[in-house]
């Protein structure tokens, strides 16, 4: 599946998904976000069991604030509408996948 661009209008639909959700909070100007971004794309394409979304913190300040984002990239894993795992900073793809499997 491709990555969903998350905004405040489609967020509830994503949050309530039956699938495990991976959210990547990012901004265009952030170097480590640009490192993580292609890995998040690959994870979305290779793992249809997950719902993968990206949140542009500049365009979606309400969502960024709701998640208390003050450092990006921030990766959040949600199950049944609840945050079950999160991390900040760039990390290898294997580590992102293990966040989803925990």
């Amino acid at each position: 599946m491709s990555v969903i661009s998350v905004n405040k209008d489609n967020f509830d639909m994503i949050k309530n998904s039956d699938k495990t959700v991976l959210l990547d909070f990012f901004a265009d100007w952030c170097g480590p976000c640009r490192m993580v971004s292609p890995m998040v794309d690959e994870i979305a394409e290779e793992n249809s069991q997950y719902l993968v979304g990206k949140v542009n913190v500049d365009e979606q300040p309400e969502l960024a604030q709701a998640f208390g984002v003050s450092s990006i990239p921030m990766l959040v894993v949600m199950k049944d509408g609840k945050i079950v795992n999160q991390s900040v900073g760039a990390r290898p793809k294997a580590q992102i996948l293990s966040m989803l499997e925990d």
Partner: protein
Amino acid sequence: MDRIYDMVIIGGGPAGYTAALYATRAGFDTAVVERLSAGGQVALTGVIDNYPGFELGIDGFELGMKMQQGAERFGATTHYTEVLSVELSEKIKVVHTDSGVIKGKTLVIATGANPRELGLQREKELVGKGVHYCAHCDGRFYKDKTVVVIGGGNSAVSDALYLSNIAKKVILVHRRDTLTATKIYHDPLMKAQNVEFCWNSVVEQLVADQRVSGVVIRNVKDNTRTQIDCDGVFISIGRQPATAFLKDKLQLDNVGYIIADETTKTEIDGVFAAGDVRTKALRQIVTAVADGAVAVHYAEEYLNQSK
């Protein structure tokens, strides 16, 4: 039979990809092993103004990508995987990664450095919750807020300057009574209206519940302690070489830099250290790329001799 590269390079920053460029052009079968993404520390820097050839400066991430593409154009291969350990004692150097083994006749270590941590209690747990190491990455979340910057070198001062354009107030805490940063930074910082200085001071404690709400600093002259309220802390006290996987494998200095001179040769034949990871006077992109080329020069000499 396993593929054995002529050269394996650990680290895809400026030193690594310059080595890869020179190696592939010298006809070496070359692999770069990179943990995350090209560029290393350069990719985490906003605009690079001190790499020649870009008269208006160049975006750090873009420069890193260009270096990678330049090397891959001549046939360098990049493996995106994390290095776990190395075996250097035999003629063929073995790199163990989390996705298998990579072997090479020569090895260039160009793993660079990461931001140094202060070592305060709860520092790790509060990363992203008010503790930061990259002002250009996280500074924008502190619009109209108060931030503390710790350090007095080039990166601390450039962080403080950058943050002074966003935050309401920037407090620079430095253990000396003068900046160690290059002169070009001094004037603009001294002129900034919203920058305050705490000289001769070290941060002893992070004040935090869920998030950082302040720091306790100690004046090193008279040992008085003061609590400063702030919304975030940017730690910029230098770098830590990424050499943990080389302990007991290669000679490191007391901070962890690989001991190697301008030839980039380490104590082990066929193993080279290029860029910020080795002992050197000036850690810059231009000196890192120079190391990459020099490493290939001596690797070529080594391969010819050991034929």
